[in-house]
């Protein structure tokens, strides 16, 4: 079970991506829990995630989240802006799996 957390300002635009990523994961038979939250919820939600991906418009939060991520011991990264614009679930899912270490 992979637990993939996405965060942006209010969890709205990342949730668009979440639904696309879920479709891809299902089609490929990957068991994954994928969900999006508002940035203020991200630090607490990280505790039950395997990886955190940040919306590119919130990339200035990476430093702040990185300290929490280090404590929890999960990788984090900023989502590629082009993949974000295309709502490319496949690319972002691949990135997440790569970060988890698949």
């Amino acid at each position, binding site marked *: 079970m992979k637990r993939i957390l996405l965060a*942006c300002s209010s969890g709205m635009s990342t949730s668009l991506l979440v639904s696309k990523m879920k479709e891809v994961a299902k089609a490929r038979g990957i068991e994954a829990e994928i969900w999006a939250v508002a940035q203020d919820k991200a630090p607490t939600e990280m505790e039950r995630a395997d990886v955190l991906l940040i919306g590119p418009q919130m990339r*200035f939060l990476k430093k702040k989240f990185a300290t929490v991520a280090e404590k929890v011991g999960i990788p984090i990264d900023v989502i590629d802006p*082009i993949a974000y*614009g295309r709502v490319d679930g496949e690319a972002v899912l691949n990135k997440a799996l790569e970060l988890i270490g698949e």
Partner: protein
Amino acid sequence: MNKFMNFLENMLLPIADKLNNNRYLTALRDGFMVALPLIIFGSIFVVIANFPFLDRLLSEDAYAAYQNALGPASAATLSIMGLYVIVGIGYKLTQHYGGEAIYGGVVAVAAFLILNPQELDDVTGVIPTAILGAQGMFLGIFTAFIAAELYRFFVNKNWTIKMPSGVPDSVSRSFSALIPITLTLSIFLVIRIIFSFTSFETVQNFIYTIIQQPLTALGSSLPATILAVLLGQIFWFFGLHGQIIVNSVFDPIWYALNDENLQAFQAGTELPNVITKQFIDTFLVGMGGTGMTLAVVLLIFLIGKSRQTKELGKLGGPAGIFNVNEPIIFGLPIIMNPLILIPWLLAPVVVTIVTYFSMATGLVPKPAGIIVPWTTPIGISGFLATGNSWRGAVLQIVNLLIVMAIWWPFLKIMDKNYYENEKAKK
């Protein structure tokens, strides 16, 4: 050009970083988030209490009874939103420091109430609700910051009463907060007493006169608004979330202005402010998202020829109705696209000016102080924000057409480029 863009981005990123990671601004923004559900609840009942034509359908007495019955809903939430923002700030700031957050919340409220007048027109034993709303907003924010800081300071001093082991955790926690809270609130009481000897009489009066009034006057001006709007657009141009950065500074002002309008709206008097929270959220952001990109989606359907833009229109359209537009911003792309920079900056400024003067001249009612969720679709949001006026909705449509006209030539050039590239590839 690329070098220049890189230079600008390297300059903006640290600003965004500073503003967004500043613990006070973060606590302030999150504090407003805490109050938001209550604000929306109150707003819904202001809308219901002021449904159009009801005043003509019902008799005067029946209409008054109807409004009186619904009144407490907004009076207990929207009208005294400052109170909830203060709890939120005290809580979030204390939580940030890893302290017992709920005590941070209550100590902030108590400190705020200590600083405020506790009488109204010689009636004692009352707390004027006006100071819990717009009027007290700034004092409330500062008080919450200082109270939470003092509380943390005293907790860290560790002058707490230690309970023997075996006492339940929650019991000992309630005692451990005793000394820090007592010391913190005593300081605020002393401040209150000192101010009672000045010509301001209360701290509330002092902050309101010295800070809040000048700041809101400045914030309600057209140039300051254009500047705030432009800053948001520039941040977004570099793919940084503009509102979350700019609003953390402007929200207290915009909400305070909003609340002044609400008081006037409910009292049935002339609304004082054009620039309010809803001016920004409904007439600028509420048209498909930042930069009013619903107009861009419509234009794509109208004139788009290339596969790339047409696909994007389909992808970004449905979310755009609810003012979520990241697919358009990152997909068109708007970010770092020199050609798009012109309509991106020009359209919001034109719309700001058009909206401002439509309201200032009375052509369209000013925002009534109702907080409409930012995901409300265009038309509905304009109607609700202006206190159930169809003219608010019409203004949004006019603005949408203006944005489409400004974008037209630029989108056409861009789409043509994409189209020719696609043809060349085939």
